[in-house]
């Protein structure tokens, strides 16, 4: 997590510097605002990863000194990890699902509604709602393999 957090915080710091220097050389608000957006894009997730990095390390400065969540460095961050160190559940992956294409079809129709008429939005929103319900139920139930 350390490299990841440094990578993102580095992005934030770089764009922060650029945003400040751009503002004071041009006083142009549109570009500055977008650069501030890029700064936030780096700093917010960077801070999140930094937080988890410290928590994994059992830093006493997090969680009022509680270190029970300390798990040490993740196997994928260790130079000397073996494949066996990664044993256990990697993640849960869904099987095949009809809902992504349904959701995209709904979005397709919904956007066409802006061009061709509001009545299409009824179709689009309905399909999107059905797909959202479908995909959520599938997540709870587990998909067809």
């Amino acid at each position, binding site marked *: 997590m350390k490299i990841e957090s440094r990578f993102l915080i580095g992005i934030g710091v770089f764009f922060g510097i*650029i945003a400040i220097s751009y503002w004071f050389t041009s006083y142009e608000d549109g570009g500055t605002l977008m650069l501030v957006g*890029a700064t936030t894009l780096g700093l917010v997730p960077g801070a999140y990863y930094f937080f988890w990095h410290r928590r994994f390390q059992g830093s006493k400065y997090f969680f009022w000194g509680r270190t029970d969540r300390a798990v040490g460095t993740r196997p994928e961050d260790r130079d000397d990890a073996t494949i066996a*160190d990664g*044993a256990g559940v990697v993640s849960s992956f869904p099987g095949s699902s009809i809902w992504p294409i349904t959701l995209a079809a709904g979005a397709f129709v919904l956007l066409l509604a802006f061009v061709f008429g509001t009545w299409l939005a009824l179709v689009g929103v309905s399909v999107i709602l059905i797909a959202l319900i479908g995909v959520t139920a599938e997540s709870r139930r587990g998909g067809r393999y």
Partner: protein
Amino acid sequence: MTDVIVPQIAGGEPAYAAAHEEHGPTGLMKWITTTDHKVIGLSYMITSIVLFYIAGLLALGIRVQLTTPHGTFISFQQYNELFTMHGSIMLYLFAGPFAFGGLANYIVPLQIGAPDMAFPRLNALSYWLYLGGSIMMLLTFGVAGGAADFGWVAYAPLSTTTYTPGVGADMWIMALVLTGFSAIFTGVNLITTIFYLRAPGMTMFRMPIFTWNMLVTGILILIAFPVLTAALVMLFADRHFGAKIYAVTGCHTVAGAVDVHACGSAVLWQNLFWFFGHPEVYILALPFFGIVTEIFPVFSRKPVFGYKGMVFATMAIAALSTGVWAHHMFTTGTVLLPFFSLMSLLIAVPTGIKFFNWIGTMWRGQLVYTTAMLMSIGFLFAFLMGGVTGVMLASPPIDFFVHTTYFVVAHFHQVLFGTAVFAGFAGVYYWYPKMFGRMLNERLGKLHFWLLFAGFWVTFIPMYVLGLSGMPRRVASYPTGLGWHVWNDVSTVGSFMIAVSFLVLLVNFWVSWRYPVPAGDNPWDAHTLEWFTTSPPPHHNYTHLPLIRSERPTWDYNHPDAPTIRYDHGRGGHPNGHGPYSGGNGAGPSGHGDGAPGAAEQVPAT
């Protein structure tokens, strides 16, 4: 049943074959309902290559029209539609999705030892949104008023309803909203996959450069695409909801004076668009830099030279690219020339580092001139030419002189042709055996390359001459007597050479399908993890993994006794048990050469 991967230490071979069989639907339903990153990646690549051929045909139409002065092959209106759709399809629907939707989707999880992308259903949604956007954009040819005809940059106020009424432009906007969301989702997916699903021992600084570049591209997508999508929504609001964000008409008082509060700013569109547009250029370049950085070491029989330099150069290019958007707007007179000129010139430094590292990788290597390698070398020449003229254009005095001429057209075609075509199809030739388990014909591949390489120069070098002699961009017709005729003829001949070369590629695909030559798992004796698994890889990619001790685990596994050159780590010794890496765990791969997996392996159970 939800599919859960549980890697365990196992003593023996059996049982994983059954666990890795895919139990899902087959045939068409497999392609429609899949959440497997490999199938989605292939869908992306097939779709984007089909779109590449379509946009190529549009380009041929443009070239035929310009072959003679006062060309009458198509009408001016059709010409505007052709160049708009050629640019839009190539940039939004081919080059980007081919790289970060297709190749990255397929290759990145394999390269880091992951079973799939982090969000498989989101991944499928990305593809279907992209397909929807592509279909919507192609449908615009069939609507009343024709396709969008304001150029791929859609400059306001040309793109407002006053100057471009019609459904085609609206559908163009909506198509890009769809593909914009698709790109954002893919960016999120790639970053999460790389941060969370790496195999044990695959530290950030052991990831292949291709994966690194895709990570940086993912970040760039998240910076750039939301701006484009927002700008497009505002453009649509201007067109239909009476907003005055970019519009400059209808803001006069009854007495005829300009009411500034009722007026939009047309240059705002350029600011927003290019804040997306310039990072987009690097979204279209960095993945392809990654592809050639995989290919050069393999076919030079050496590790990549300057691994960390490559990584930091990628980051530097990406970071700088977000601060240079207004170098497309020098002639508007509203931007800070020194700031943007300096930032643009600075990009040449990390790009130069990359060039030296690529040359350093090949230096004194045992070069193998496969088609993939030739395409990569072609990329070096093409991109260098495009890059050097880019440095020229970063200088405002030169830019003022050649802005909106064919010089700029030649420049960005050389850049994008170098990346998306030479490097992109280098990737196709390189990874095709992994994807389909069969080889492409090398002889046809080389014919493809040489036709393409020759056609490339014949097409685009005349455009520099035309630009310097004053031929403007986006004109459907030009008069005689200006000396432009001959150079346009040469350029058209070149473009047909390129077209023929891509027919050769189709023949090659057909030959490979009809007369398959089995590839084996690792036909190139390549370095990175994806060549460790079977070709094509099984469902969830790996039945077992090698020990990862360097940025080329497959090479380490296959060549346990080879000395490993390390330019920048300063850690001597072989990664498999003889050097400082072996300390403590004592679990170097065993049983080399007999096909058995290493000491530790990953076995999934369901």
